[in-house]
């Protein structure tokens, strides 16, 4: 063991047999890179899980106690009155325990000392109280200072003398955007199947995926790209982690025990992680913890915990369970605001201090759902009708941070509303399901908001046949059109509309209606113009690749049992996959945008297929137009490259085949030798019946006489 462990000594004890000499330079080994088989620690005790797992209960047991400072100092006769006032203020945010309020009194002066201890039932209540009553103004001279009891220890440890933090040497970080510099501008995707996670280049030229990185047991439940593709996030028991760069090294860890879900802010500045704890006692409610992290530093910026009911959506309409993401990020890349649905309010948070914007939520009586414009901090709110029907349902647009209502629309006899933002934030479509006169069924319609126009005009799209249902709706990214699947039966129609008329005026125009299509989902190319009409699940994976400019079908295809369709971020390829929700046929297929099947890969227990997103293009619109104009000349070079590569590939394949053939032929020779050697033995086994081969038939003529009948005839 001693010679194995030559200095520098590794941090772990390795159970190695004495007679094996491991020739390892420990200084060259990055311990973070070492992967152990799942469930096996090879006798090496992991340090990862221990220090990452904070107590689920509070550290000292005093977590439910707060200290309130800056109280008035009062004589004994006013003592009880003050206690009453304090109790009133602090009972609002939680239940104060019996004898849980203690305001110390100076023994000499009999005056109260100006601070109090309050003990709540739970640490969560204490947290909430601290958040809400800190800097509470009792009067001009008394502004409360609320501190958690546990924090005293922490603050008292702060040294009096300021010590400048040590300057860390600059470390070059890996280029996180290395994959954008691929010479052939290929896109990456990640797949997860069984316990494996693999990242591939989509190599359409080779007609197969090209492995970039493979790591077994990379995550415990799923992986997720960040919205601009810089990071990939994985989920583990002690928390989440992000990875990136060409070496796929770990960039940061976010300690959040039992993390279940995560969500990136659109500009990749922040990460939200979520965990929920099943209550030990069925009468208790589920506990939920949300943490917001700064991605680059890996620091926790804020933790919000509470009962699951507080986070359940549905507002006044009732509890509908938790819907992920709980926090919705405002559009744009600034990551300035995020919001969540509360009871009769939308809580908008400012990332500057991670607190409520202007310390209060945006009031919205009875709000049921909301969404952000993908472009700017603009909220769209939907408030359903109140039960009596006196107040109509409302859709309103509210600008943040000014909280000015830019537009609102009242809607009558509404059963349900669903909002669809145009990906560039130019339009908002609200699908409104209204009750028929009998209130027995509903019929759909659309309210279309032109966000960019002055005063935000609204157009209404009615569907003529009131019995039709709307199956799917999708805006064209980078365009003014949308597609709609509507119909009664199993073969609905697909309609295309434009928000502009042929002459370019702002007028809703029907482009075409395709009758009786086998489709229930719409997938626009990220570049617009092309759309895949997909019949998933019940329709067994019918695909139709449609060109909306020409209004013609380019190709149809089928990926049997397909559950998912994903365009690559450049709009060149489409991936269809069958995930493990189906018992059979698991795997994925990659198609060109014209609907030509390029390759297919089958993987049992297939869970995820995710294209790596790309950041927005740096070219401005005119440059893009220029390129489009000269596409023919520019693409020549690439076509030539493609051709050369194809030939090279064919050559390679032939070479490989020849090699396989030669190997097998050699083996056959070998077998044949045996066979010849054994010929005599075999013959003797067969009692001299010599033929092994078909040709050596022996012909033997056999005469068989059969007595058919014997009759006796007496002759005369």
């Amino acid at each position, binding site marked *: 063991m001693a010679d194995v462990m030559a200095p520098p000594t590794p941090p772990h004890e390795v159970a190695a047999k004495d007679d094996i000499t491991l020739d390892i330079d420990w200084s060259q080994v990055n311990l973070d890179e070492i992967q152990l088989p799942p469930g096996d620690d090879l006798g090496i005790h992991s340090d990862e899980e221990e220090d990452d797992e904070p107590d689920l209960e509070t550290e000292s047991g005093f977590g439910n106690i707060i200290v309130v400072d800056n109280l008035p100092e009062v004589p004994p006769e006013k003592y009880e009155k003050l206690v009453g006032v304090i109790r009133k203020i602090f009972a609002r945010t939680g239940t104060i325990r019996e004898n849980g309020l203690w305001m110390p009194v100076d023994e000499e002066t009999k005056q109260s000392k100006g601070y109090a201890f309050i003990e709540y039932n739970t640490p969560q209540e204490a947290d909430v109280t601290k958040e809400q009553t800190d800097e509470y103004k009792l009067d001009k001279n008394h502004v409360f200072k609320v501190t958690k009891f546990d924090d005293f220890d922490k603050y008292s440890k702060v040294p009096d003398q300021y010590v400048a933090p040590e300057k860390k040497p600059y470390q070059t970080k890996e280029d996180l955007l290395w994959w954008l510099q691929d010479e052939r501008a290929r896109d990456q995707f990640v797949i997860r199947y069984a316990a494996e996670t693999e990242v591939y280049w989509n190599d359409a030229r080779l007609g197969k995926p090209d492995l970039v990185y493979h790591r077994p047991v990379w995550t415990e439940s799923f992986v997720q790209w960040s919205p601009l593709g810089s990071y990939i996030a994985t989920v583990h028991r002690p928390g989440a982690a992000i990875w990136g760069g060409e070496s796929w090294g770990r960039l940061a860890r976010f300690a959040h025990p039992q993390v279940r879900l995560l969500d990136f802010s659109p500009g990749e500045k922040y990460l939200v992680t979520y965990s929920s704890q099943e209550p030990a006692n069925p009468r208790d409610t589920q506990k939920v913890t949300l943490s917001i992290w700064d991605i680059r530093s890996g620091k926790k910026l804020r933790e919000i915990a509470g009962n699951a009911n507080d986070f359940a959506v549905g507002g006044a309409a009732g509890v509908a369970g938790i819907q992920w993401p709980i926090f919705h990020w405002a559009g744009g890349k600034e990551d300035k605001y995020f919001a969540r649905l509360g009871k009769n309010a939308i809580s908008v948070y400012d990332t500057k201090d991670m607190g409520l914007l202007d310390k209060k939520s945006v009031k919205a009586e009875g709000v049921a759902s909301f969404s952000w414009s993908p472009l700017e901090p603009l909220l769209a709110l939907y408030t359903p009708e109140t039960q009596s029907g006196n107040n109509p349902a409302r859709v309103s647009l509210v600008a943040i941070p000014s909280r000015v209502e830019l537009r609102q629309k009242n809607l009558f006899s509404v059963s349900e509303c669903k909002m669809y933002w145009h990906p560039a934030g130019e339009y908002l479509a609200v699908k409104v399901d209204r009750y028929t006169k009998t209130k027995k069924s509903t019929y759909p319609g659309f309210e279309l908001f032109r966000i960019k126009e002055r005063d935000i005009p609204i157009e209404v799209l009615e569907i003529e046949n009131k019995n039709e249902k709307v199956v799917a709706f999708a805006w064209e990214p980078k365009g003014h059109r949308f597609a709609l699947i509507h119909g009664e039966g199993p073969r609905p129609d697909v309609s295309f509309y434009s928000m502009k008329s042929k002459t370019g005026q702002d007028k809703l125009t029907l482009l075409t209606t395709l009758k009786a299509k086998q489709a229930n989902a719409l997938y626009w190319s990220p570049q617009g113009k092309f759309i895949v009409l997909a019949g998933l699940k019940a329709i067994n994976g019918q695909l139709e690749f449609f060109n909306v400019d020409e209004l013609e079908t380019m190709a149809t295809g089928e990926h*049997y049992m397909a559950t998912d369709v994903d365009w690559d971020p450049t709009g060149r390829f489409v991936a269809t996959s069958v995930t493990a929700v189906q018992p059979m*046929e698991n795997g994925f297929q990659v198609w060109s945008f014209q609907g030509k099947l390029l390759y297919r890969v089958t993987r049992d227990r297939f869970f995820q297929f995710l294209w790596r997103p790309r950041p927005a293009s740096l070219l401005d619109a005119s440059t893009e137009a220029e390129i489009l104009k000269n596409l023919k000349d520019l693409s020549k070079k690439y076509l030539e490259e493609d051709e050369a590569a194809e030939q090279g590939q064919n050559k390679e394949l032939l070479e490989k085949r020849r090699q396989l053939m030669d190997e*097998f032929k050699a083996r*056959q020779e070998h077998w044949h030798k045996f066979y010849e050697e054994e010929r005599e*033995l075999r013959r003797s086994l*067969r009692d001299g019946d010599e033929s092994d081969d*078909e040709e050596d038939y022996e012909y033997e003529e056999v005469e068989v006489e059969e007595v058919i009948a014997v009759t006796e005839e007496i002759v005369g």
Partner: protein
Amino acid sequence: MRPLLMKGHERPLTFLRFNRDGDLLFSCAKDHHPTVWYADNGERIGTYNGHNGAVWCCDVTRDSSTLVTGSADATVKLWDVASGRCLYTFDMKVPVKSTEFSVGENLLLITTDPFMGAPSQIHVKRRAKNVEDQEDDTLLTIKGPQGRINRAVWGPLNKTIISAGEDGVVRMWDAETGELLEQREAHEKAISSLALSPDGSHFITASADKSAKLFDTRSLEVLKTYQAEARVNAAAISPLLDHVVLGGGQEAQNVTTTSSRAGKFEAKFFHKIFEEELGGVKGHFGPINALAFCPDGRGFASGGEDGYVRMHHFDPQYFTMKA
């Protein structure tokens, strides 16, 4: 290629065997009655009546005079091919899964299922040239592994016995002593069949792990792997071209719950050396349980869970296509 549809069995097919000349096709099924057909036109010649359980396998002598069948009724029977008369019955006491004549046809290889706590067994019996001299005694009994042996065949010159079964392991035994010579944990799931090449130098296994593998008979080395999309129940090696054929499909119990296209009830052709899929022959509406090539390689027969035997004679294009 229009197949001949041969309907005669009332229960799922279990095994198919051509005689050496390729003019007769013997089929076994779970309906107790092994059947013989003209391979050329699919005409049924007759059945061999006498078994009282599913018939799992059969073998025929080189001169096409004697047929041996093994059945779940715990018997192995020898039959006169021409007359359909039962010549002799071995009472094995335990359901029989596979049986085969040795080179020279003096020995008979029989495997029996695990039964009442006893493991599966491989038996070697002597077969008398003259039926009147036939005796019941066993020359060798090998105690097999726990779990069923689905198929056992003779190695070159009857020196070894190769068995494969539910545990996914291929084993080679000494045919004289019964000693275990070699074993390969080749498949993740049960091996359902095993078929030798015409010269006996290599063989192919079919497994529920959705793959078939090619082995060297003398070393049990895995040479090739053919990946299918559903479980493989049967596989066969072409005697003429470098092709293998795989048959199977989703488990019979799931057939009714999914659309027929999901089943993958195709006989799939692979290039034996490149492991590349060449094409498929559809037709059965249940999983394929048995496959056999004509001895001349100009056709093949498939037997399905649906009770049909489909006899395919290849089109001329099959022989001229580029590999």
